């Protein structure tokens, strides 16, 4: 080895490399992760479905439907699967879900009493003794119009439009370089002052932001996955054009693509 470089694709904001992933940071500030006693992805899906909660893959995460429009994501952190609730989730919904899971699974799934307390302290509308029966039950979210604006990790507008379309969100060109997306009861406007600039998103929502943040987290994950694929395809093209040879290629456990290119 002689020189080691860290590079950022032109389609991604620099904050990704600096570890200040803005979208993820904002989402995580609102999160309440609950560590589960479930080792593998398959076990999460099977356990949730056995308890009556439909669970499926959503990008790099799992998504569990709680009914009545409520849902949450699972993410593997530090080798353990965590259920990601948010400060906007009504406490009765979360408590009811956990109680139902423990009863139907026949064992304790969420062990940490401290994390459960965090749910109680940070969510609103605490009601004792609420039992969640599965799809069809639930409570309403917070009211009041809210507006938020923040920078994203996106720099390639065309790629962002593709990701939005592929995820069931139809982007509308506003004609001023901005894109609008209707999501649930919210309007998202993606703004880019000049090509290549970091795109910001302005969100206006009549209800709480949790659903919007979660969808944005999925878009963020998908966008980065598309960037990875785009970089890979570009690299293959360049290698061929320059008459170079790919000596070795493999996909690693963390889904990185590792290529060795012979220059001679």
């Amino acid at each position, binding site marked *: 080895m*002689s020189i080691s470089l860290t590079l950022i694709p032109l389609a991604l904001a620099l904050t990704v490399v600096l570890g200040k992933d803005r979208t993820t940071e904002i989402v995580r500030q609102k999160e309440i992760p609950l560590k589960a006693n479930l080792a593998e992805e398959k076990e999460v899906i099977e356990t949730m479905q056995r308890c009556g909660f439909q669970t499926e893959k959503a990008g790099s995460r799992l998504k569990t439907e709680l009914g009545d429009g409520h849902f949450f994501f699972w993410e593997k952190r530090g080798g353990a699967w965590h259920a990601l609730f948010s400060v906007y989730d009504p406490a009765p919904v979360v408590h009811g879900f956990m109680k139902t899971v423990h009863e139907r699974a026949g064992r304790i799934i969420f062990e940490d009493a401290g994390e459960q307390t965090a749910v109680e302290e940070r969510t609103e509308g605490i009601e004792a003794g609420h039992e969640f029966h599965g799809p069809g039950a639930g409570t309403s979210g917070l009211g009041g119009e809210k507006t938020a604006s923040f920078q994203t990790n996106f720099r390639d507008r065309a790629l962002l439009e593709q990701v939005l379309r592929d995820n069931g969100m139809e982007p509308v060109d506003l004609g001023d370089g901005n894109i609008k997306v209707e999501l649930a009861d919210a309007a998202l406007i993606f703004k880019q002052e000049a090509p290549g600039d970091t795109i910001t998103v302005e969100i206006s929502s009549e209800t709480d932001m949790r659903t919007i943040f979660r969808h944005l987290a999925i878009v963020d994950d998908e966008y980065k996955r598309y960037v990875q694929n785009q970089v890979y395809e570009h690299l293959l093209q360049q290698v061929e054009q320059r008459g170079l040879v790919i000596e070795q290629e493999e996909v690693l456990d963390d889904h990185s693509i590792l290529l060795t290119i012979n220059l001679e």
Partner: protein
Amino acid sequence: MAKKIQVRIYPDGRIEAVTKGIKGKKCTNYIGLIEKLVNAETVDSDYTEEYYETEEVIVEETVEAKITENR
């Protein structure tokens, strides 16, 4: 060792690239190529052991050739 570039493309889009078999400052000549290969810009770099090595120079043969020439 043959001259190579090892590129790792992470699922979050970050890229790491390492040159192999290229000793000394010549490795920096490949930064531009790497950026073009992956359509990205360098945000951080680190010189590794090989950077501080020099390529072998066959001094003995060179000197002998000069001596022979001067005779």
